[in-house]
């Protein structure tokens, strides 16, 4: 790995019942995956308000992973369906904001799919690495509050 290689920061919102346990399994199984992911445990992927994704991107994340139970397996019956319904609209909206949709990924990862978690993280890290830094604060309006030209 080249020393000056861009290391993306990826925030992962993981559902407490399936995907976080899947990530845990990847760890206890000693499956290797890139250290670029910052996991945040949520009770359900349905709890991942689009606000969270935008806040992550606005505050310095280069990519976001949302992971939950497979459809039909939700601990709260339909929380992951809500996530699934919101995701395409979020991508359409990010298009308009000029943020590549590949930066935000939704995956269903069960508690037994540690390998899948590692594979998804690898793939997403490489995808975002290829896209380059988002650096939202450097290009976004909020960064230029006092600048007057």
């Amino acid at each position: 790995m080249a020393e000056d290689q861009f290391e993306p920061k990826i925030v992962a919102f993981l559902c407490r019942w399936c995907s976080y346990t899947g990530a845990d399994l990847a760890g206890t199984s000693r499956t290797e995956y890139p250290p670029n992911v910052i996991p945040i445990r949520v009770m359900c992927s349905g709890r991942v308000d689009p606000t969270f994704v935008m806040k992550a991107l606005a505050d310095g994340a280069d990519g976001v992973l949302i992971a939950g139970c497979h459809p039909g397996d939700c601990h709260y019956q339909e929380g992951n369906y809500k996530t699934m319904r919101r995701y395409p609209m979020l991508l359409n909206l990010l298009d308009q904001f000029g943020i590549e949709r590949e930066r935000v990924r939704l995956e269903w990862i069960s508690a037994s799919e540690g390998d899948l978690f590692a594979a998804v993280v690898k793939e997403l890290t490489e995808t975002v690495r290829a896209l380059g830094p988002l650096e939202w604060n450097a290009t976004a309006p909020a960064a230029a509050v006092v600048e007057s030209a």
Partner: protein
Amino acid sequence: MADKPKVAFYWCASCGGCEETVVDLHEDILKVVELVDIALWPVALDFKLKDVKTWQPGEVTVAFINGAIRLSEQEEWVKLLREKCPLVVAFGSCAHLGGIPGLANDKTRREILANKYQRLPTVENPGGTVPQEKCRVDGYELELPGFWKQVKTLDQVIDVDYYLPGCPPPPNLVADAVTAILEGKLPPKGSVLAPEKSLCDACPRKDSKPERLSITEFKRVATSIPDTEECFLAQGYLCMGPATRSGCGERCIQGNMPCRGCFGPTPGSLDQGAKILSTICSVAEADTAEAAADYADTLADPLGTFYRFSLPASLLGGSRREKE
């Protein structure tokens, strides 16, 4: 006369509708004038920047500033008013959240200037001239205000004490705010001077909102006429009500138009657009990824719809732009 508190009204990037709401006080404006002196009101009275510079700090109690900020001239004015006035109220959606002018944050400055001065079919500009901050004409150096890369809300430029939301703020909220200031009964600094509940709570159609909403696709008021009694969301029209603060008097609803969100987010919400996205998509009639994508595609312009009044105040603030 000398005992009356003085107030100032100023406008930045706005349409003049906020000025209209002051005029909409009708005869009540006479009561206001009995209680306060208007020290500055460019739409009606001829005062200049140099007049404001002569004010003693604190001489004018409150400045009501409407409009978003995009020009260096606007920055100079609002910073001066902030320096002179103990209270600054962001008046209306544009000062509060960026408003309609804030939608320009969807484009770069270069695109805006090129479109306005070069590309429009009605523009005749063979030299392709765009406005410059300084230019020489007949030996004179002329100056224009600087045009910022982005539109900003008032509180992204100066410290703001209170917010009066709305496009424009309704007269009763304006009157309540003026009364609160005169009586010294103001809420904590930073408050939005409007109710805290969402518009749905005050909506005259709320009884027709089903217990469990389900939307199959979005209709547009441009191509079909909504029923005059039923909840807009239940009919499939995108209504910003669930993500928008109440207090507007439900004027749009009474005019058979869904809420467009001018009162801004409800308290505690960081991003009005993300909140309405969450609400209306969670109830989509779609149980597969493909159906969800089709559903999303029935809404033509999510950014312009969700952030019609709040793009500069949103978490992302505007579209990603090339460095100029």
